[in-house]
């Protein structure tokens, strides 16, 4: 059974890598968004492998269901086709700087990670869903309320920003 888990991990990692590379390198933003969705599904598979099915479900519900629709609205409100603003090829200098920005911090973190490997369990912990619920309402109730407050402020801020003032125009 362990070989199956490793195989699933490799497949999910490949899905994540392919989706992420499509998301950052595609010329059309619609394709880029599809790559992002593929990455979300790959990460949801990783959550399943980590024995957290609730988080995998939430990943699909929140990211694929809500965030992707928001990004799709943003794509539709701008010119996103193959001749749009992202269509011009990325210059060599810009690509080099972007590679530097991506690889330098990650190389440092990766070196630390590989050098200091902590003790790990072979099997992930199983957390009951009731433990999560009682944690949200009991021990971490303040965080729960704060995130709802943040969402409320973000929502009303978005409405306020995008409001078309009619008397001015």
């Amino acid at each position, binding site marked *: 059974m362990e070989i199956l888990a490793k195989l699933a991990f490799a497949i999910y990692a490949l899905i994540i890598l392919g989706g992420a590379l499509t998301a950052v390198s595609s010329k059309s933003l619609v394709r880029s*968004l599809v790559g*992002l969705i593929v*990455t979300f599904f790959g*990460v949801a598979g990783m959550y399943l492998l*980590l024995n957290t099915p609730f988080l995998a479900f939430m990943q699909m519900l*929140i990211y694929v269901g809500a965030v992707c629709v928001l990004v799709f609205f943003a794509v539709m409100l701008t010119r996103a086709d193959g001749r749009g603003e992202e269509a011009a090829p990325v210059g060599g200098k810009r690509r080099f700087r972007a590679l530097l920005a991506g690889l330098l*911090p990650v190389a440092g973190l990766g070196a630390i990670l590989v050098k200091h490997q902590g003790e790990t369990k072979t099997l992930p912990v199983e957390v009951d869903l009731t433990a999560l619920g009682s944690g949200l309402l009991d021990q971490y109730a303040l965080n729960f309320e704060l995130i709802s407050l943040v969402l409320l402020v973000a929502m009303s801020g978005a409405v306020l920003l995008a409001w078309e003032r009619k008397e001015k125009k």
Partner: protein
Amino acid sequence: MSALTLYQLVALVLLAVGLYGIVSRRTLVGMLIAVELMLNGAGLSIVAAAQLTDANATLGQLGTLLVMGLAAAEATLVLAIIVVVSRRFGTTEAAAVSTLKE
């Protein structure tokens, strides 16, 4: 290589690709997509650390839920900002948005 390290390496790959995207993309929408990639890497890293070590697993899962909520709030605000910028400047290229008042 332990399982925890492998999961953390996948999260690091997501971080690297996201950083590359946020620097190389021209438009705000492309940058938003890169930020979502990085947030996903953060969530995966937190869950892997919580599930595979002696740390509090409930806290880790709730922390990832918190990251997801923050990502949703951030995407909402960025969408509104993109609407305002494209209405005002006629484009969403980050380089074009460099003046406070025209």
